[in-house]
């Protein structure tokens, strides 16, 4: 069997293959990535798109939670102030109900209570980042307006709508509680109860009933704080969960697209050895010729 007398093209082809291998390994080592083009691993490239999408969303859910937590905290501390103000109003009411008080003393109590009325109105109109917190979704409209034609002297201009924000796949959290459910809920109208107490003290009659009504409203408003407390707890729990999810996604991303550094390094060494061996072979072959031995 006659063999191919010119193996150099074969060796050169082998050399170019090992050089390609060296380049691939070097590229993986320098970029830290094994999937740089879809053809490097088509299935991984497709999965990486999904991974990128999920990562985008998980990051967004985290940011949404942060922004919602700010809103919850503002609302919660506002309601805390409301509760404290109502407590003070109740104390004043009980003082005012003491039959030994002079008209003048009651007048000064009424005076303080009217200050609390103003404070409550202002608290109910609290804004967060320029938007009214307790207006439902009519966030650009002053929700509680003074209106002497209504029984309580305050008119609600907001609506009953609730925004929900997605904070997980299929997991939405209510972002707000409309003011109609906090301050002017039927039977627990804070402004009406306050007005009732002021009127009772001014007339010095029916004070106990008025205090009872205000206590109801106080209990009700205190109860509404639970919504924000719960929401903040849920947000905290979800935030922790999302942190874990983010870690998993990043691990998956690395498994799919990251370079196996050890494997790449050993490929680099192997391909360089192969290249050296091939080069040595080419050098040897060109030295061998019968012509050298014939004189």
């Amino acid at each position, binding site marked *: 069997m006659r063999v191919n007398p010119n193996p150099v093209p074969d060796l050169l082809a082998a050399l170019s293959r090992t050089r390609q291998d060296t380049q691939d390994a070097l590229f993986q080592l320098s970029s830290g990535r094994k999937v740089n083009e879809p*053809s490097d*691993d088509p299935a991984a490239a497709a999965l990486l798109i999904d991974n990128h999408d999920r990562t985008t969303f998980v990051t967004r859910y985290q940011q949404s939670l942060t922004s919602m937590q700010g809103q919850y905290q503002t609302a919660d501390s506002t309601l805390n102030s409301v509760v404290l103000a109502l407590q003070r109003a109740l104390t004043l009411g009980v003082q005012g109900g003491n039959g030994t008080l002079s008209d003048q003393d009651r007048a000064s109590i009424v005076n303080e209570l009217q200050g609390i009325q103003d404070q409550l109105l202002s608290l109910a109109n609290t804004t967060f980042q320029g938007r009214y917190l307790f207006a439902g979704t009519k966030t650009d409209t002053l929700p509680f307006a003074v209106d002497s034609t209504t029984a309580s002297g305050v008119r609600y201009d907001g609506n009953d*709508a609730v925004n929900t924000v997605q904070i997980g796949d299929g997991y939405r959290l209510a972002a707000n509680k409309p003011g109609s459910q906090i301050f002017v809920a039927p039977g627990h109208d804070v402004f009406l109860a306050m007005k009732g107490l002021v009127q009772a003290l001014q007339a010095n009659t029916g004070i106990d009933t008025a205090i009872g009504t205000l206590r109801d409203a106080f209990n009700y408003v205190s109860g509404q704080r639970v919504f924000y407390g719960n929401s903040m707890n849920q947000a905290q729990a979800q935030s922790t969960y999302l942190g874990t999810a983010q870690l998993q996604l990043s691990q998956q991303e690395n498994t799919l697209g990251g370079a196996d550094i050890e494997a790449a390094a050993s490929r680099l060494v192997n391909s360089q050895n192969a290249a050296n061996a091939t080069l040595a072979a080419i050098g040897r072959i060109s030295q061998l010729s019968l012509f050298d031995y014939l004189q």
Partner: protein
Amino acid sequence: MSGLYGSLSVALSALRASQQSLETSANNVANANTPGFTRQRPVLVPGDPVVLGRLSFGTGVVVEKLQSLRDPILELRLNQESQSQGKLDSVLSALQQIQVNFSGTDSGIGDAISKFFDSLQQLSTDASNPSLRQGVLTAAGNLASAFNITAKNLQNQRSNLDLNVVETVGEINTLTAQIAGVNQQIADLENVHQDASAFVDKRTTLIRQLSNLIDVSVIQTEHGITLTTASGTPLVAEMRSFPLSTLIGSGGTHGVFSGTADISSSIASGKLGGLLAARDQTIPSLQNNLDQLATGLATALNTAHRAGFDLNGNPGGDLFVPPPTGGAGAAGALSLAITDPSQVAASSDGTPGSNGNLAVLSAVHDQTVAGGQTPLDFYSNIVFQVGSDTANTSADLDASDLILQQLEDQRSSISGVSLDEEAANMVRYQTAYQAAARVVTTINQMLDDVVNLGRY
């Protein structure tokens, strides 16, 4: 023919034969690195004997012919493999350029889709915020331009491939004209019974080059060879070549014509076959997929957008300019229908703070908008398809390269010049020449002896 003079002529024939053999070796050594060269070896035959009575005397040696060592079947297989290698090579180069548009998760259509839905989520935490509304419009604009850029790149690539088709047809015509010319030279030589081996080598090399460009069938005829495409379009008939032509068609790309017949769709192999496949199948199919995705996504988002209300409480309009009916060119033409951030229909009830309709818009992320798939699933599929086509073609090309290399090895083991072999042959020829020269010297002395008979 016997006698001393007879012996002299026998010795001379040996000298001539050794010399001619040495010349053959010299030519082989000279062409050791010539591509396509086929080594030759002298075929020595004894001269016709002379019969004298009961004795029959040899009349020396004759170089009957110089035999070229080639295997026609191997050449055919080399041509065939060269055709598929040419096709794979041009398809791979097209695919590698295509997949650039789909590589990386931080850019391109996939990323733009994710970022658009992300901007909706961001707006949902503060639905009336003007900068977040602008964010949605910007993300939607980026989504449209990601489609536009990819569509434009694909279209440009298609134009480049088309240009390449025209150039390749030019190369094919040059080669077929050359082959027809060489056929003429071979016929001229063979008519006067001369050795046309060098021209046959040249023709073999030319046919190989042609095979790399187009699918060629070689038919041996009485006066040379005829070349046709695999589907029978004539390229060369003995001494005549039939040039192909290109003509721009209604689709804006060039058709390949033989005479008046459009043969574009019948060219299955070679570089031209690969270019045509990438130009007329791979890219249009991708364009169609992108158009489908752009149409599905824009239509679904428009429907969702129209269900809501903008910042001023007006009913939402289209978010994107509605894609053309049928979808052709949708990806390239995708653009925004609104420019004012307040027109983003985030609200579900007309109040500015409501984010209800953003949930409707976000839901498109998980809706089936194209080919029964969600936008990103459909897009991932495109990426997978492009990636696996590229990877498979690359593997096929590697295999084809290896096969070609093995066939080349085989060809070289039959036709290639071995310097060792030639060195050994030279020793043989030199020794034969020395021996024959010795015979001449001896006969010369004997003739001398005869001439001087009786001088002393």
